[in-house]
């Protein structure tokens, strides 16, 4: 098959994307685990791990630009590479949100939580699955899967609204709960933003395969 070398390079690019996604998923899972268990050591690990994510982003960008310079890809090849450039940016931002959650865990260290965390971990579980499945859709160039993943954003938005209302009530009932409630709101918002980043990833996957820009938020 012609262009073996180029196809091998594209395969390597995809493997790098999978590795980066895996590190980002771990960062997210660990950040929520640290939050639930108030595990400061785990929170510190998430924060430290962010350097690895940043390094992976730069390496993938570099690889993409080299492929463009040396192989002159066009049509779908070019879209796949351009999409990789966009996706790594979203993955890096997702990892940043995981770090934000870890930092809040550290700030709340030593405090008893004002309520048991149920919906936040539930939201996090959904978006972790979204991250994993979106990259899966990219690897398999599966437009239907990308659309399906993006639709889970609705459930995440619903949970975020629910958490917002609950926390608002808590704050109104007892001003002493405002501090923690605000932090939990930030966390809920971070997770909701992660879902938006995954929706972006899904839009880019559809673009890579079909060449069409779609707005999955509509």
């Amino acid at each position, binding site marked *: *098959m*012609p*262009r073996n070398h*180029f196809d091998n390079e594209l395969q390597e690019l995809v493997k790098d994307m999978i590795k980066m996604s895996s590190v980002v998923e771990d960062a997210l899972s660990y950040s929520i685990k640290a939050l639930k268990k108030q595990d400061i050591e785990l929170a510190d690990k998430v924060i430290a791990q962010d350097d690895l994510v940043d390094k992976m982003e730069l390496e993938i960008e570099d690889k993409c630009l080299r492929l463009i310079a040396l192989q*002159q*890809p*066009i*049509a*779908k*090849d*070019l*879209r796949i590479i351009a999409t990789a450039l966009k996706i790594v940016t979203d993955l890096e931002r997702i990892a940043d949100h995981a770090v934000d959650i870890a930092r809040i865990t550290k700030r709340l260290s030593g405090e008893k939580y004002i309520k048991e965390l149920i919906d936040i971990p539930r939201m996090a579980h959904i978006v972790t699955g979204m991250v994993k499945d979106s990259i899966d859709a990219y690897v398999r160039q599966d437009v239907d899967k990308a659309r399906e993943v993006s639709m889970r954003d609705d459930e995440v938005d619903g949970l975020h609204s629910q958490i917002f209302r609950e926390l608002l009530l808590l704050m109104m009932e007892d001003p002493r709960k405002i501090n923690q409630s605000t932090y939990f709101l930030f966390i809920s918002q971070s997770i909701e933003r992660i879902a938006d980043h995954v929706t972006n990833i899904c839009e880019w996957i559809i673009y890579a395969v*079909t*060449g069409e820009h779609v707005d999955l938020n509509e």
Partner: protein
Amino acid sequence: MESIKIRVKDINLYYGNHHALKNISIDIYDKAVTALIGPSGCGKSTFLRCLNRMNDLIPNVKIDGEIQIAGNDLSKYDVILLRKKVGMVFQKPNPFPMSIYENIAYGPKIHGIKSKSKLDDIVEKSLREAALWDEVKDRLKANALGLSGGQQQRLCIARTTAVEPEVLLMDEPTSALDPASTIKIEDMMESLKKQYTVIIVTHNMQQAGRISDFTAFFLNGELIEYDKTEKIFYKPRDKRTEDYITGRFG
């Protein structure tokens, strides 16, 4: 909106029993560069030669169908006049074994221009259009065969434009040239297409992407896909086009 210069309808061409072009229909736009791409033997050069009836010179060739240039049926054209209107540049530069000046003046003289000042003007204008004037203006009497490959090819382009054609056919005009000469000729395309309809056969995908407005992909004598170059290179409709332009075959 571009206007159509050449209408091709249901062209079938046979070399003996070999069906080399199959039901080719295509409208080629004026004041634009159209690239013909496809693997070796796909029929693109054969098709190009239909447009100035060069295939008439090949024995055992049979052609059905219709080609119109600016509304005129090609088959009814005087072939000498046709080759003035439709100029051709070949892969290997082929300057005449005469001076640079005489190479350019030859065509206009054949077509009746006798005035020396008019010929001087034509020579200068054509060489300027070919971005060659500054390099040769002080040695117009020098033998054209002494020019470099890239200069010879630009001379051939100048020779073609000297007779005021409407269409320029180019069959892999830069494939025998070095990168610097290639770029010079590609740069000319922007100005050439302001005056002429340019059709270029090329094996170089990047070149087609750089210089053409429209691209036609040929395969096994068929026209598979024809569209704006940005569309063909960005989101081709046919998988065979995608496979070819991404180098997966051919």
